[in-house]
């Protein structure tokens, strides 16, 4: 059964159509990659799925674990197990990372009818997760993303993901701006979560992340539509031939 079923999804930004009929089924436990040139609608898809304002759905439907995803508030989507790793994580001055995460974690737990986690156990879990991601404990004391380097921000996203344990992670160009070491850490973070209860949509412009997170399927997005789908070998083929040929094919 598919965890995420997107059917005929159309969306626009400021009156401009960006998604023009996306069809995609993501079965439970699978990792799919979405690739495509700049402006093809990759980030729009991520924002529509996570419920950001300013993205108007003009057609189609999205079902997540059988629920109507588009009818849910952003926090409800998170509680239901959806997680977006942002391409450009925002800074929250004055908000400590630990406090932020525990608040988020407990909100999600409450919504799921689970028991809240106390400060001591939270710290234990958080520190363990940090160690797995080769990150310093000091990360918890800092304000959310404030003064973080690009790589630190991305790793912080993966750290949050590790703690919130989503059923579906959407990684929006998490590889952009990362050096190879950071890239490996991010990939390990994702791979550690892989299993029968975890699915992911990995959005990327380049193939190199897919060397480390090997997808079950690859979809190519162009001008707001999926123009081709295939196995991991499709990403390699794209690497060789580029997107230009595909766009022509689609048109």
């Amino acid at each position: 059964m598919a965890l995420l079923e997107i059917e005929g999804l159309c969306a626009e930004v400021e009156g401009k159509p960006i998604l023009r009929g996306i069809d995609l089924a993501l079965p439970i436990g699978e990792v799919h990659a979405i690739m495509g040139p700049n402006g093809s609608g990759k980030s729009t898809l991520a924002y529509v799925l996570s419920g950001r304002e300013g993205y108007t759905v003009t057609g189609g439907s999205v079902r997540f674990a059988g629920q109507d995803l588009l009818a849910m508030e952003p926090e409800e989507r998170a509680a239901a197990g959806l997680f977006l790793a942002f391409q450009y994580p925002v800074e929250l001055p004055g908000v400590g990372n630990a406090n932020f995460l525990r608040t988020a974690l407990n909100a999600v737990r409450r919504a799921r009818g689970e028991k809240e986690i106390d400060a001591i156990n939270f710290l234990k879990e958080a520190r363990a997760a940090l160690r797995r991601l080769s990150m310093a404990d000091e990360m918890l004391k800092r304000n959310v993303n404030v003064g973080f380097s690009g790589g630190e921000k991305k790793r912080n996203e993966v750290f949050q993901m590790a703690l919130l344990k989503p059923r579906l992670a959407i990684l929006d160009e998490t590889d952009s701006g990362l050096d190879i070491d950071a890239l490996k850490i991010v990939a390990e973070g994702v791979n550690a979560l892989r299993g029968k209860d975890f699915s992911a949509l990995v959005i990327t412009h380049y193939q190199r992340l897919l060397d480390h997170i090997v997808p079950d399927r690859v979809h190519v997005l162009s001008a707001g539509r999926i123009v081709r789908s295939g196995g991991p070998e499709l990403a390699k083929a794209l690497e060789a031939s580029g997107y230009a040929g595909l766009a022509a094919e689609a048109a």
Partner: protein
Amino acid sequence: MPAVAETIETVSAVTEGGYKWGFETEIETELAPKGLSEETIRLISARKEEPEWLLAWRLKAFAAWQTMTEPHWARVAHPPIDYQDIHYYAAPRKKTPKSLAEVDPELLRTYEKLGIPLSERAALAGVEGGQVAVDAVFDSVSVATTFRETLAKAGVIFCPISEAVREHPELVRRYLGSVVPAGDNFFAALNSAVFTDGSFVFVPRGVRCPMELSTYFRINARSTGQFERTLIIAEDNAYVSYLEGCTAPMRDENQLHAAVVELVALNEAEIKYSTVQNWYPGDAEGRGGIYNFVTKRGACRGRRSKISWTQVETGSAITWKYPSCILQGEGSHGAFYSVAVTNNHQQADTGTKMIHIGANTSSTIVSKGISAGRSNNTYRGLVRIMPKAANARNFTQCDSLLIGDKCGAHTVPYIESRNATARVEHEATTSKIAEDQLFYCRSRGLSEEDSVNLIVNGFCREVFKELPMEFAVEAQKLLAVSLEGSVG
């Protein structure tokens, strides 16, 4: 438990509705007839068995007040106040108690509802790793003061000011009105004429006050103005941290509160004064609520003395308040940390004055204003560098946050420098909560209201970290309560 910490839990258990402190206590009260005249003042003075010099001082203040007019420069608007329609004295009818056992049990129950540890045992049990002494002012009379013995052992005097007038007349006479003169401004003059009680703190030379001192104010009786007067003196090398919390019952009509607080810090002394003000703000339509017209001023008289004001202002229909520092002693330091929240129809015009007189004086101002509903929130501050204040330093950070499009946020700083070696820096911003921050929090599962609270708390953090810990927790919760209903 500290004076106002955890009141939310305590009180929400016994009350309902938007303003969770809005219960009234049924106790017998002695009221002076309404109206202000020499007779009223003589009556107050007589009831309090005051010496002749204090009566004379009050009458002089009254004479000055009669020549003055209400100030109108603040950005607040209210119907005219009828100063003859107010009771200037309200006291629980029973005699001043000698010990806790003599306190009216009904009164004790009120404090219990408020979460005030009037009995020493409760206080000890409630505080983790710290102790707080409480002087509770119920309407006009200080009812009981806890921890007096422990403090006495350290040489600290902490008692109602009316008692200090009797027991320590030389100290009161030397310092009363020395920072805020009787005729300083309209409301200070009014207070000087009619003040009924308040706290008195004296920390002698070299003493570090062994616990946080606290006063809890509550306006109870109908149509009574509360005019408390607080005087705190820290002698050379002394230290004291003082906490003030305020609530009032819900009422349709407005009540006037015109307090005066004077602080005196001598050589290398330090006074920290923290306020969590949660007077009844009026209902959602702007009916009722407290008019909070307060004069607070500290004098850093001694070299390297320090005074800091920290305030969290969430209540009152109108707040008019500028806790100030006169930085006279060489190398003295003044600080003002403020969070002012207005919602519905509240109006706040608050800020500070830092008057740099001595050389090497420094001051820090951090003000965070949050406006929601149809409220108006103004920061008004003065930094004045006098010609002798060589190397003076000031830093001011003043941020406003708007929640909703019916409110107003205003910033009115005055910067006056008359010394070339002084350095003054001022920064101010006004914005709304950023959509992307809100979305980020919500995408992590927080409700919109929780997200706003989290971001607003982050916005206020620089100020909250100046509060004693229990107060900081209290302040965060108050913030959430004050902003209830402002989102969405």
